[in-house]
């Protein structure tokens, strides 16, 4: 290792796409879901976040995107703190929720125009990005039709297009391919890889572990509000002598049902 030449300073280490430290959170009147939780996602990675039902994935996603406020701790996206009501950091990320999150009465073009404006884009950029996205996601021929008339797979693609219209540096994907056919799933995964190759960091949750294996280069398994394993996918499989993510998942989280108390 070369010593640092005198008179020069080391460039600061690049900020990770996501850094969570000392995070604690619990819903009022219930035991805490997270206590001193920490997680770091390097920029440019395709990060998979997995866990059984009730593990805290959705809550974590809501904390990261500012939909919930932690009782303690710090969440930063590219070094900028996530503070509720402070919306500058929201420009840095995109979000593709599991629920179809758009107006079914509107066409893809109209939805993208509205969400593009709310993402901070100007009119010309929205038009250009809309044209690009509709071609890439195979929606060009139905650009002016009401989304309510679309198939499930087409709606998923509209959902994805809205999440990436402002080309965020970090994209959160919550079950982006649930309920779609094999062709649509393959197209979405291909497009996500393309986005990642252009520098976009992906944080992805899903129960489709086969799909996750083909997309993610790093994974974290969380259970009961804590990380039970985290590493590059290959290293994790090797360390636990597992041939696949599903086997590893069951090995680390058990086979019991994870029903919530009702």
């Amino acid at each position: 290792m070369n010593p640092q030449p005198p008179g020069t300073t080391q460039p600061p280490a690049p900020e990770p796409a996501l850094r969570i430290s000392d995070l604690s959170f619990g819903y009022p009147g219930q035991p805490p879901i997270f206590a001193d939780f920490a997680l770091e996602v390097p920029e440019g990675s395709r990060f998979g976040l997995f866990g059984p039902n009730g593990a805290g994935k959705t809550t974590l996603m809501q904390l990261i995107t500012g939909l919930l406020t932690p009782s303690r701790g710090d969440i930063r996206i590219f070094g900028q703190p996530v503070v509720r009501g402070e919306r500058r950091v929201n420009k840095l990320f995109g979000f593709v929720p599991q629920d179809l999150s758009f107006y079914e009465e509107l066409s893809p073009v109209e939805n993208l125009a509205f969400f593009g404006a709310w993402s901070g884009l100007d009119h010309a950029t929205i038009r250009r990005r809309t044209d690009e996205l509709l071609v890439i996601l195979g929606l060009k021929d139905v650009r002016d039709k009401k989304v309510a008339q679309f198939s499930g797979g087409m709606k998923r693609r509209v959902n994805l297009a809205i999440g990436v219209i402002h080309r965020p540096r970090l994209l959160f994907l919550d079950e982006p391919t649930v309920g779609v056919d094999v062709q649509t799933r393959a197209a979405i995964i291909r497009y996500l890889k393309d986005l990642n190759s252009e520098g976009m960091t992906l944080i992805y949750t899903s129960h489709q572990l086969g799909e996750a294996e083909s997309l993610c280069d790093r994974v974290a398994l969380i259970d009961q509000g804590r990380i039970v394993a985290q590493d590059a996918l290959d290293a994790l499989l090797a360390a636990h002598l597992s041939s696949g993510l599903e086997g590893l998942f069951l090995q680390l989280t058990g086979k019991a049902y994870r029903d919530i108390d009702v």
Partner: protein
Amino acid sequence: MFKLSATISKDVRVLLRDRIGLIFMFGMPILLVLIVTSIQNSTFELVGKSKVSLLICNRDTGGASREFILAVDTIGFFQLVPAPAGAASLSGAAAADLIHERIRHKDALLGLVIPADFSARIAARAKSVTGKVQASFGLDSTMNAPDSQDSLPVSLYYDPVLQESFRRSAEGALYSALQLVESKQILRTLYYALNEKALPDSLERQLLNNRTRIDELPAVSRKDNRDLPNATQHNIPSWTIFAMFFVVLSLGSGIVREKRNGSFIRLKTLPTSYAVAIFSKQLTYLVVTLAQAVVIFALGAWLFPVIGLPPLHFPGDWAALIVVTLLCGWCAVSYAICIGVFAQTEEQANGFGAVSIVILAAVGGLMVPSFAMPGSFHLAMSLSPLHWCLEAYYGLFLEGGSLKDVWANILSLFLIIAALQGLSFWGLKRKNLI
């Protein structure tokens, strides 16, 4: 600004594609205003212009009863329905049965039976009064008649559908005709007793037709507005306000729908405050309420005369009309947003929204005149935004007022709007939506 214009564009598109919502906001109020005005107009005309059908069964053959019928006809309040041939010779009970039967068959709303001794009783009363007058003047009485009975010797039958106030009006008109006939008979008898010749017609007319004329004017008329209130002037403002507040079914449930579907989650993660969405909805639906007012006012002004209803007369102060309409619309939109912010489901927003508007309209005087409300309702009335909207509109449409005449209503509306907006802001803050 671009975010706001994009949001307005989205809201307008969503609104225009909500056909059920449009029917609720435009179709239903138009239908309501047409139906209610038509019905109420016939009531106004019944009281004001049309004559009430009156079937008279005259069992008397004397001159007083003929004069009484003539006096009743001259009042102009009644349309006389002739009794069937032979009715005059019926007994009292048979005449009553005949009137009952005819009223049941809707041949007339009122029926009058003049007893067989009507003229004789009138003459007897005239003689009795004349004798007393002569005695009081110290003259020898030439009239020696016993005191007549005090009870009215006619029977008035009515259709039970007639309201009491209306019956009282008819009764008053008949008393007036009776009074005329009795006075005439007394005058003639007294004149004859004093002069031993008949009362000249010219003197009789002078003595009996010297009534002071009543000039009927709306008590609150301003700017020489002498238009009498009619069903159109009453109903157009009322149902315009009702229509405006019915935007709750589109706007209130639209906010709930947006909150409950996935789009809201995404909106909250975008670098734009939800206040932009609320502001856009306010502007969009304010334009909707103005469009509702324009459509309903236009119907009143141009369609109503074509279908035989009184035309709507606009107030002279157009600026005041615009200001009041804007405030009514803003108040309606504020109310709808408040419901949308606090309702958890579309069913809650629609159910509570619709029912609460009907209640607020009822206590606000849209359905029952505010002066007819019991005292215990006055507080509720003053809390109803629809009441202040109606008072402001009535100040312009019925009283011919200007902006300075309705400023108190405008101030009340402002306070209610401020309260509704404040409540919505607090609700949005509490839910961390803005």
